[in-house]
């Protein structure tokens, strides 16, 4: 076995490194293509005999449910295989790696198909429930994956340390070269490309949010989790990032339009309420990112500031249960909520931010709990009557802005929009405000000072930065942003109580999940917390069957992610370099370790 491995290594070594499995390149390519086409064809067959398994997999000639995902995967595999083979008109698909995307896509397709087969067998009680079509799909997708693993790697092997065992070869075969510089297109074409990219992203996101049963969502997740890295390996993501960086304002507008178009994609707006909650969660996570990602302050009770904003808005909303009988107009309620949160932020921050390190984490953890218990006890029995204790403030009236009632359905362009769509758009505006606050403060004198404090507080002080003042500023800004989101949250959920603002529970937003969204998504970035929050909200909402194991699985996922991608899903340039020594392209790799070892150069000198 070892002999053959070494032989194939030698045979192909001069040009390219072999793939994870020792197969001849031509045969591997042919087998991959055949497998992908066969998989594609198998999705048109019936996979099972009964409609008891959701998604209508029984009809021949019409793919449904999980079959659509397999079909998409097989189609993408074929396309990238052809593109890598140099078929004219498809080459733009693979400016970076050619074979590594195919490997990932084939694995993704196989994962979805095998998951589908397994789920059918499990749900219906036995493999006997698989129709021949299902067997064919499983076999064909497995063939594709195995053959794809035999495709040669995109990058030549390091001659000094050639990958030896299969695991190393797999890792090597997934490495892809950076894409060549893109040809400059006319700007209208580039803008169209950006629009197309956002449209695809919106479609994928909508598909995910609208999956009707857990099995489909798992399949969606499996395919996406392997297809997105495949696009990255192919160099497409970097191309798109380059374009969005070039046309920043266009991209921001496109992202906003794509998000605003979300309610249009559903006939009955049933998933818009999920989207509002994601947006609230994501916005608060982004606010937390100012505190954690930029200034490096660990805040474990951040959800309390959301609560402060929500309670303030609820109390001045004119709800019959409010202990203050006032009814502020919305703009005034928003300002009051944000201002009260700001005051709390300063009150908590001022005594603690003079200290370094983890004291703040403990104090904020305490504050989070004090807030919740305080709200519970201000019920007129244990304390003054302010918040109705554990009942909270129900019946918060719907907003009315300039005669537009948010509680009633409206018809626009022939589409009917429900209450949640109205709140979705309102929340989207708040999100845009928070995104721009984050971005503008990040790229300014203040943002640089925050990052400097995070990197080295002593050096930052020695550069004339009043560390205490700036940390307080970050903390207070974070609190204000959370309070701002809270004011809208109160109206959206229309009933608030202390139990919504816990440190950790199964349903986000709570402090632990907010922090997880920031870290999992990527600290210090705009996109990171948005993606992190969307995932953390959708996964538990869609996978009801994991039920009480949710926190366990969440913990395992977090540990795995931190082990394999510590910088988060969306990597900040700085963080990426922090965790991966030689990530920078414009600097020779050898420079990377010189500064780390001053002792060595001292000895040499």
């Amino acid at each position, binding site marked *: 076995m070892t002999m053959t491995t070494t032989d194939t290594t030698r045979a192909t070594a001069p040009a390219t490194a072999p793939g994870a499995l020792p197969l001849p390149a031509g045969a591997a390519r042919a087998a991959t293509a055949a497998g992908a086409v066969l998989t594609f064809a198998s999705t048109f067959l019936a996979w099972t005999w009964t409609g008891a398994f959701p998604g209508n997999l029984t009809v021949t000639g019409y793919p449904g449910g999980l079959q659509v995902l397999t079909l998409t995967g097989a189609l993408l595999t074929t396309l990238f295989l052809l593109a890598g083979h140099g078929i004219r008109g498809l080459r733009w698909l693979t400016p970076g790696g050619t074979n590594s995307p195919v490997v990932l896509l084939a694995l993704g397709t196989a994962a979805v198909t095998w998951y589908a087969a397994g789920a059918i067998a499990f749900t219906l009680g036995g493999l006997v429930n698989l129709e021949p079509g299902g067997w064919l799909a499983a076999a064909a997708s497995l063939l594709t994956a195995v053959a794809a693993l035999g495709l040669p790697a995109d990058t030549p092997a390091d001659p000094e340390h050639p990958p030896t065992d299969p695991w190393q070869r797999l890792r090597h075969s997934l490495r892809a070269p950076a894409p060549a510089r893109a040809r400059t297109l006319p700007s209208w074409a580039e803008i169209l490309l950006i629009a197309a990219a956002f449209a695809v992203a919106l479609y994928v996101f909508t598909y995910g949010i609208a999956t009707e049963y857990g099995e489909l969502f798992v399949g969606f997740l499996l395919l996406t989790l392997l297809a997105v890295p495949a696009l990255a390996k192919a160099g497409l993501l970097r191309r798109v990032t380059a374009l969005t960086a070039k046309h920043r304002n266009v991209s921001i507008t496109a992202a906003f339009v794509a998000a605003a178009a979300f309610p249009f994609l559903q006939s009955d707006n049933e998933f818009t309420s999920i989207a509002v909650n994601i947006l609230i969660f994501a916005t608060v996570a982004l606010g937390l990112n100012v505190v954690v990602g930029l200034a490096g302050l660990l805040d474990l009770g951040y959800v309390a500031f959301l609560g402060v904003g929500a309670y303030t808005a609820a109390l001045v909303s004119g709800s019959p249960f409010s202990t203050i009988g006032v009814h502020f107009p919305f703009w005034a309620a928003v300002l009051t909520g944000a201002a009260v949160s700001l005051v709390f932020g300063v009150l908590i921050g001022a005594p603690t931010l003079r200290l370094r390190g983890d004291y703040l984490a403990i104090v904020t953890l305490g504050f989070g709990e004090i807030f919740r218990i305080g709200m519970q006890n201000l019920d007129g029995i244990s304390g003054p009557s302010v918040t109705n204790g554990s009942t909270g403030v129900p019946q918060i009236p719907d907003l009315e802005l300039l005669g537009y009632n948010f509680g009633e359905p409206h018809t626009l362009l022939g589409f009917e929009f429900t209450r949640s769509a109205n709140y979705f758009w309102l929340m989207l505006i708040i999100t845009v405000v928070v995104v*721009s*606050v984050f971005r*503008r*403060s990040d790229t*300014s*004198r*203040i*943002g*640089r*000072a925050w*990052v*400097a404090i995070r*990197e*080295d507080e*002593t*050096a*930052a*002080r*020695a*550069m*004339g*930065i*009043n*560390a205490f003042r700036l940390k307080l*500023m970050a903390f207070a*800004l974070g609190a204000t942003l959370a309070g701002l989101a809270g004011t809208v949250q109160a109206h959206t959920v229309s009933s608030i109580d202390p139990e919504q603002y816990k440190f950790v529970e199964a349903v986000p937003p709570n402090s632990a999940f907010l922090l997880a969204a920031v870290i999992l998504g990527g600290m210090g970035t705009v996109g990171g917390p948005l993606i992190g929050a969307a995932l953390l909200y959708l996964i538990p909402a869609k996978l009801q069957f994991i039920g009480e194991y949710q926190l366990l699985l969440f913990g395992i996922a977090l540990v795995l992610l931190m082990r394999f991608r510590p910088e988060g899903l969306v990597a900040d340039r*700085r*963080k990426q*370099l*922090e965790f991966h020594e030689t990530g*920078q392209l*414009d*600097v020779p790799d050898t*420079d*990377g370790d*010189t*500064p*780390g070892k*001053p*002792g060595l*150069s*001292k000895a*040499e*000198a």
Partner: protein
Amino acid sequence: MTTDTTTSQAPARDTVLDATGVTMRFGGLTAVSDVDLTVGGGEIVGLIGPNGAGKTTFFNCLTGLYIPTEGTVSYRGKVLPHRSHLVTQAGIARTFQNIRLFPNMTVLENVLVGRHTRTKEGLVAALLRGPRFKKAERESEDRAMELLEFTGLAAKRDHIARNLPYGEQRKLEIARALASDPGLLLLDEPTAGMNPQETRATQDLVFAIRDQGTAVLVIEHDMRFIFNLCDRVAVLVQGRKLVEGTPAVVQGDERVIAAYLGTPFEGEPGEEELAEVEAAEAHSTARTEGDDTA
């Protein structure tokens, strides 16, 4: 350069830094004891001493990182507060013995952070992005680029600081300190770990900084560097100032030599032993060279 050697004979032109009776005790340990030091405008003053003599502690007292137990530090006649950022704002900038850059920021960003005290735009200005904010940002960037040109790092403006070679990290730290437009620059072992060429380049850089009107106080172990560079040298031993004077005076002082090289102890290898060792070394070198040719 030559003009300044003449002015250096009269150091007290206008005093930039005046430290009097600075004492620093950590519990029972007196790290710095009653040290007086003045630095005049346009002067380069060296501070030398064996390891653990209290040089860096003294620096930390000057820059407000430590609050001295006794004594005062004043800059241009004003007593400095014991807050690091206020000292920098007053006009004293420093570098660190073990380089303390912001490792994951770019070279340009590092220098821009140094501009912090000389710019005013707050959070509201950053959020509103008015014309004044943009102008201030542009000016900061221009000044930062000027300093990067000055230190020869302009080509590396977008590199991440931690990826710079060691010598350039030292230079960047100096550029960052200069960004606060200081009247006095404190350099803590600026040539530690450098090769002779880099040391010479640093020497030229320090002269150039002085020529721009910034006084320099420098801690260093490299004697040749110090004696070439400084107008005046102070020697710190066990927390006390031993001698202060021109390089010539300090170099000739027996106490300094004793402090650095130590006084002879009993049983020290005599000249005979030394000769023996040298002979043995010469022999072994000759043999290895012979092996190489064979």
